[in-house]
């Protein structure tokens, strides 16, 4: 049977190795929560102080594209979950298909994001690069947009890394590296992917849905 993942010599058995991989990914995700957390904290402070300006700035975001992207990302989490499930079952072909599908859907998210950014550029709403705002309190609108760009591009960066990761997994799967006994990398990558999804689920209402009912 192909795909007996090698037992690394520091571990006693595959179960221990798998447990270690999972725990390791969870610990890493905690660091990611704190990483984004700093941005969320800063954003929350400013939003509480400048609620009027932030509400107004939020209206300049593209709600339609943002909502579509949310649906897109949630769908990618679904396909990722299927990928993990197929890995557990040892179904190589299905695993590869779902990995590729997840990557494609992730790329769609990125494409929509780039489109949004391009629109902002045309509207002169990119702080530090091209910014001119005629409405009231431009300073705080600029603050909002700084957070928008930093948070969403950081998220997009993580998503891009995730797509790369899945690409590597797809390749390894194609080479027969995984089996029902050894699929920990797929599972831990799945955790990472779901985390990226959850970050977006927090970002989207915080940034796009201020004051909408």
């Amino acid at each position, binding site marked *: 049977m192909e795909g007996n993942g090698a037992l*690394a*010599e*520091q*571990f006693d058995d595959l179960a*221990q190795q798998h*447990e*270690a991989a999972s*725990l*390791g990914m969870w*610990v*890493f995700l*905690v*660091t*990611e*929560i*704190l*990483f*984004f*957390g*700093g*941005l969320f*904290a*800063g954003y929350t*402070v*400013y939003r509480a*102080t*400048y609620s009027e*300006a932030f509400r107004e700035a939020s209206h300049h975001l593209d709600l339609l594209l943002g909502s579509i992207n949310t649906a897109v990302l949630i769908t990618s989490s679904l396909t990722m979950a299927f990928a993990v499930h197929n890995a557990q079952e040892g179904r190589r072909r299905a695993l590869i298909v779902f990995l590729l599908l997840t990557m494609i859907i992730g790329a769609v998210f990125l494409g929509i994001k780039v489109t949004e950014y391009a629109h902002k550029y045309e509207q002169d709403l990119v*702080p*530090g*690069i091209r910014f001119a705002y005629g409405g009231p*309190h431009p*300073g*705080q609108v*600029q*603050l909002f947009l*700084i*957070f928008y760009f*930093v948070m969403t591009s950081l998220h997009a960066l993580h998503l891009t890394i995730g797509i790369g990761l899945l690409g590597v997994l797809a390749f390894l799967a194609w080479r027969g590296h995984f089996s029902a006994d050894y699929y920990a990398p797929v599972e831990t990558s799945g955790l990472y992917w779901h985390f990226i999804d959850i970050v977006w689920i927090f970002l989207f209402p915080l940034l796009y849905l201020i004051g909408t009912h």
Partner: protein
Amino acid sequence: MSPTIAIPREHYLNVSYGVKSWLFTTDHKRIALLYLTTITLLFFVGGAAAVLMRLELMTPQGDLVQSETYNKLFSTHGIIMVWFFLIPSIPTVLGNFLVPMMIGARDLAFPRLNLASWYIFILGSLFTLWVIVVGGVDTGWTFYTPYSSIYTNTFVVAAVVGIFIVGFSSILTALNFIVTIHIMRAPGLTWFRLPLFIWAQYATSMIIILATPVLAITLSLVALEHLFGIGIFDPALGGDPILFQHLFWFYSHPAVYIMVLPAMGVVSELITAFSRKRIFGYSFIAFSSIAIAVIGFFVWGHHMFVSGQSVYASMIFSFLSMLVAIPSAVKVFNWTATLYKGSISYQSPMLYALGFIGLFTIGGLTGLFLASLGVDIHVTDTYFVIAHFHYIMVGGSVMGYLGGIHYWFPKITGRMYPEGWAKFSALIIFAGFNLTFFPQFLLGYLGMPRRYHFYPEEFQVLNVLSSAGASILGLGYVVPLIYLIWAMRYGAPAGPNPWGATGLEWQTSSPPPTHNFEETPVVTQEAYAYGMPEEDLKGGR
């Protein structure tokens, strides 16, 4: 008469030779030595900055270097010592070497990640060294905005990148430790049989995981503001410079516990080994490590009592800062009580451990001065603070580190260092340290602010005393460098357990084989099982 002790024929150091066998190793013990080399180098770079500063401060005028240079010196000193020496020191050298051994494992959970963390550390260090070479950064290690984000024209972005990268290295080490300690303990090794060094590493790793990412994002925002003029902390846009301080100290206060908890873990090991006695209050010490880690996350505002922060916020932070002192006090009392009816010997690791307890007590108590709001108004941002944290970081952590290096030197190298020179150095360091930093408490209460290139004449005598002490302290650090390197080659073979200590690391040969143990040990006893009737201590001299 003890039997002739010899170095084992094959061990982790001679199992393979050549640069590639080191640069591509995944053996946690070799990686520990890679780190040792790197951070020793960086220590002396940071130390050189301190030497220049103390030379300048011998006279009230700024006559040795220009103000811009002096400001870059103290910034470099802080950045290197905090992120490139103290934070890595015990975890990456002693932790990497000992965590698997103390729990009876063959290696850490993720050996390749371990090697990666060293490479990442090298990359971060190169960035920082490059910054120094091309002109330095002058914001202080604290990077307060808006000076760092808008006003300075020094290499802020590059410095931030170096620190960001090295933060990753730190996180990977901590992640490795947490997973290893949870999952790879030998049979019979329950949590409450773990050596306290492991408890300390675990608590430290928790702090690193939770705090470091916040630093990373905060410094990134400063870099972005500096690069693109996007003012998150810029008052002209409605940004808040104080927000930076909150975010920065949210990491940097727990960071000081990252720097001291491992040393406390070392001290627990040294006190028991050199008293040959069960540690007094094991679970209290273990839980104190956890308590310090947890409470330590909620006290950051004590760095901001005069920042314009609300009076009520300051009171909460003051109260919690008082609380965080209690578990440290508990440790000091328990270590002291361990000595009672012990069988105490005074080899240099023990001298370092006892020195730690004394100097950490002073440093910790002066923290209470700073936590007391009314007094803090006067002494914050003065030399009082500098003295306080150097008592803990240098009198505490560095002495803990040196004590650990000496204690485990025979295990790491298979050889003993020359005890006479070691004692001499320990005493020089202790004396030099106190002469350097005690006058600074006085200077601080007199009102001499920190980060001053020049100062009023009446502060000169105390500054001269401090600089004199620094020269002695510097000498004290150079001597071990020499004899330890010498002993690596020419020291007398030490045998598996030259100290007669308990602990799994002493039950394998010195130096250990690559996989640490011939067979996975099975643990049946509590930690520090000295004085037990069935304990059969091997080795000794």
